[in-house]
Structure formats: structure tokens, C-alpha cells
């Protein structure tokens, strides 16, 4: 069976800057992969290439066998099956919490208003912010906003979830509540690719950890191996600074 996400010889240049250099990796069905590495190593770019938010300079990404970086591919259709959560939440500030979540399923999944609302409320209950359903995003704490953002992505019932440093702009006391939601999702068997600086989370939840440095994939393996006996000197140096 084909992997949920397969990245083949992916390179990305911004002008003269090589952000990704010939990266190949895969995320299997139901697998949780954490992508770690120093800032500027290309982690976020790799993730954003997976749903085509970033265009590849060369190489290809296959999502369930469908080439993302191909003119013939209906990118909107691919994205409907991939949820994405951003560092800065990116909730729609002109819509209430509930409207944020019901917008896409209503437009793209043909859900009636009551159906969309029901699904949204179930998801809000799941991420623990049901009581905020009628609030505006800016009335929520960072942790609540990010949990709403997760619910918004889940409302499309995606098969894959991408997380781009989901806790990096949160106050420390709110990191836990977001990671707990993500861990619960992982335990339900969601296929996840997570760019993160939370080494504890990566170690506890990930099936596999990828280490990126200067646009190269240097290391890939189970968290226990990567964290305790990294093969590369560069990985060792990075881990010694963050652990």
C-alpha cells in the first residue's frame, strides 16, 4: 500500500537560497512523524510543500499516490483531505468560533447548516472549548484559539493532519492543553506530520522523528533511537542544545 505522504527528491529554492535539498521521506498511514531541527532548517517549508502551500522547485510529493506538485492535480481536492494547523492559528477574525468551523464543511462537503453545526459542536467538545462556540476568536486565549483551529481542520474529516509549530506562539502554560489534544488525535490513529520544538512531545507521541538541518534530511528513525543514539554529529549537537 502506498504511503499517506511520500516525498521524493524534493528541493525548494527561494531565489538563491536552498531551503530544501533533495529531501525524500514518507509518512505511513496512521503514523505520527515529528520533524525537528534548528530554525531555518526547512522544516516548515517541507510541511508546506506537502499540501502545496509552497511550490516545489523540483521533486514531487505524493499524497495517497496523487502528485501534489503537478499542474493536472486538483490541489483543492487534495487539500480537502489534509488538515493543517498553523503556528499563528489563522482563525478567521470576522467569524465566530462556530462559523470558523462550519465554513468549509458547509461549502465543500455539502453539509446543511444544522449538520455542520452539530459536527462543529462535537469537535469543540472534543478539544474542550465548546463553551466558547459563540465567541469571537480574539476573545480566546492562544491555547483556545489553537484548539479551535484544530477543530476547524478536523471538521473537514481529513485523513492527514499537518501541524506547523502549533505551540510556538503560545504562552508556556497553554502548550500542554494543545499538545494533549494532539496526543489524543494521534492515539485515535490519525496520520500526522508535526513540525515542532517540543522534544518531549516528539519523544512521547511520535512513531518516527525526522531531523532536518540546512535543508537536508540528516536523520530519520524512532524517537528513542534519534534522541538517545543519533548517528549524525549535527543531530547530537542540536539535541544537546534543546534537551
Amino acid at each position, binding site marked *: 500500500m502506498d504511503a499517506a505522504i511520500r516525498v521524493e527528491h524534493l528541493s525548494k529554492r527561494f531565489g538563491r537560497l536552498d531551503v530544501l535539498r533533495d529531501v525524500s521521506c514518507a509518512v505511513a498511514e496512521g503514523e505520527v512523524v515529528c520533524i525537528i531541527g534548528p530554525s531555518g532548517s526547512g522544516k516548515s517549508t517541507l510541511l508546506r510543500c506537502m499540501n502545496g*502551500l509552497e511550490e516545489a522547485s523540483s521533486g514531487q510529493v505524493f499524497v495517497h499516490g496523487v502528485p501534489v506538485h503537478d499542474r493536472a492535480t486538483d490541489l483543492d481536492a487534495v*487539500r480537502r483531505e489534509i488538515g493543517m494547523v498553523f503556528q499563528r492559528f489563522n482563525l478567521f477574525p470576522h467569524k465566530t468560533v462556530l462559523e470558523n468551523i462550519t465554513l468549509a464543511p458547509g461549502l465543500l462537503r455539502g453539509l446543511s447548516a444544522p449538520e455542520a453545526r452539530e459536527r462543529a459542536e462535537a469537535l469543540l467538545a472534543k478539544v474542550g472549548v465548546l463553551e466558547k462556540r459563540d465567541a469571537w476568536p480574539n476573545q480566546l486565549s492562544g491555547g483556545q484559539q489553537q484548539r479551535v483551529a484544530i477543530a476547524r481542520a478536523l471538521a473537514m474529516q481529513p485523513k492527514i493532519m499537518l501541524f506547523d509549530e502549533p505551540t510556538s506562539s503560545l504562552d508556556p502554560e497553554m502548550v500542554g492543553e494543545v499538545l494533549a489534544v494532539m496526543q489524543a488525535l494521534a492515539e485515535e490513529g490519525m496520520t500526522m506530520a508535526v513540525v515542532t520544538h517540543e522534544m518531549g512531545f516528539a519523544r512521547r507521541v511520535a512513531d518516527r522523528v525526522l531531523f532536518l538541518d540546512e535543508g537536508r534530511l540528516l536523520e530519520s528513525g524512532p524517537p528513542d533511537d534519534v534522541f538517545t543514539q543519533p548517528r549524525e554529529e549535527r543531530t547530537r549537537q542540536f539535541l544537546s542544545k534543546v534537551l
Partner: protein
Amino acid sequence: MEQEILWFGWFRADIIQEYEALFWTGLRMTVGVTVVCILQGTLFGLVIGLARLADARHAVAKTACRVLLRWPATVYVSFFRGTPLFVQILLMHFAVVPLFLNPADGWLISGDTARDLRQDYGALITGIVSLTLNSAAYISEIFRAGIQSIDRGQMEAARSLGLSHARAMYHVVLPQAFRRMLPPLGNNAIALLKDTSLVSAVGLAELAYAARTVAGAYSRYWEPYLTISIMYWLLTLGLAWGVRHLEARYGRGDSR
């Protein structure tokens, strides 16, 4: 001769009374032209603004967007903002409109119909077309700035949910941009309202034309021009109030 009516010892109110109908007609014309041009200018301005932002992912379409949409839109905006509206009105009335509506060989309409149209509606057509084109240039810049001011993350979040570019624009970016565009759009509407007075130069019977007629008949200037000044002032106050009302209404989710 009617009885002279003096207000405050110097204001000949009877002149205004005598020409009351002319002022009301002028007011209706001014308001009508303003409303029509705001609506058309906003629509056309949105089109021009989107054209100035047009871009595509792939090389061929990218070049097409630049050459066929962005460049013409940029030249358009540059011309209409870079030349005086008064000159545009004269050019429209005496050069452009006769090209399209001409008894001899109009590009659009010829013969007697063209003659009658020019006679009866020439100034109105000139006014509506030039003010629409001119305000569209300014409004397109307001749209462009408004859209560009919305954080990229909003478009990315909408696209990553699977919304098409058009739907993301319509449901996510434009509503937020519109809220930010309201104050400059309001300013633009007020400017447009006042600029309608320029069209009196080619004979459109709006407020300024009414005042000039009265001034010519009596060789009195305070009465007619003060009267229309107050009418313009009340209209702009009303517009400003309307815009504030809209801002409050579309301010959903703002800092509160």
C-alpha cells in the same frame, strides 16, 4: 416682481424661493449621479484592483497575468489619478463621447438617435462615465491596499481547508478587507459627491449649475452659492454618518 424677502438684512431669500424647483432638481441630479457613480465605481474599482493583484503559479499564465491584466490596470490607474478630473470631463464630453455617439459615424450609435441622446443626455452621460472611471481608479487602490493588508495566513488557512482562491477571497479575505476599506471608501464617496459639481461645466443641471443659473439671473452670488454650499455640506455630513454606521455594523470580531 415678487416681494423682496430679506433675511438678517442682507440675504435675499426670495431669490432662492423663486428658483426652489431648480435647486431641488439639482439636488436630485447631484445625489443620483453620486449614488450611481459610487456603485459603478466600486464594482469597476474591485475589478481593476483584482486585476492589479492578478498572479498565477505557472510561467505562461504568470506572464499572461502581467501583460494582460496587471499592466493595463496599472496604466489605467496611473492615467486617471495623474490627470485632473476637470480635464478628463472635458476630454470625455468633447472628444470621447462624440466618437461613440455621432450623427455621422458613431462607433456605438449613429443618426438621429445619437443627436437626440447627445442633446438630451450628453452631459449626464459624460458625468456618469467620467466620474465612474475616475473614482474606479481611486477605489481600485483602496481595494488593493485593503486586500494586501490582510495577513497571508488568512488566505493560507482558507486554501488549506480546500477552498478555491475565489471562495477564499469571497468568504475570508474580502469581508475583512472591506471592513478596513470602509473609512477610505467613505472619504472617496465624499470626494465624489463634491466632484459632481465639475460636471456643471459641460451643462449638467446639478446643484452647482443651479447656483450658476441663479447667480447669472440676479447677479447675486451669496444667496445661490451659500445655499448650495449648505446643501453639499449636509450631504457630506449624511454620507459620513452613513459610513460610521456601516463601520459599526461590519466591525464584527474587532477588538472588543
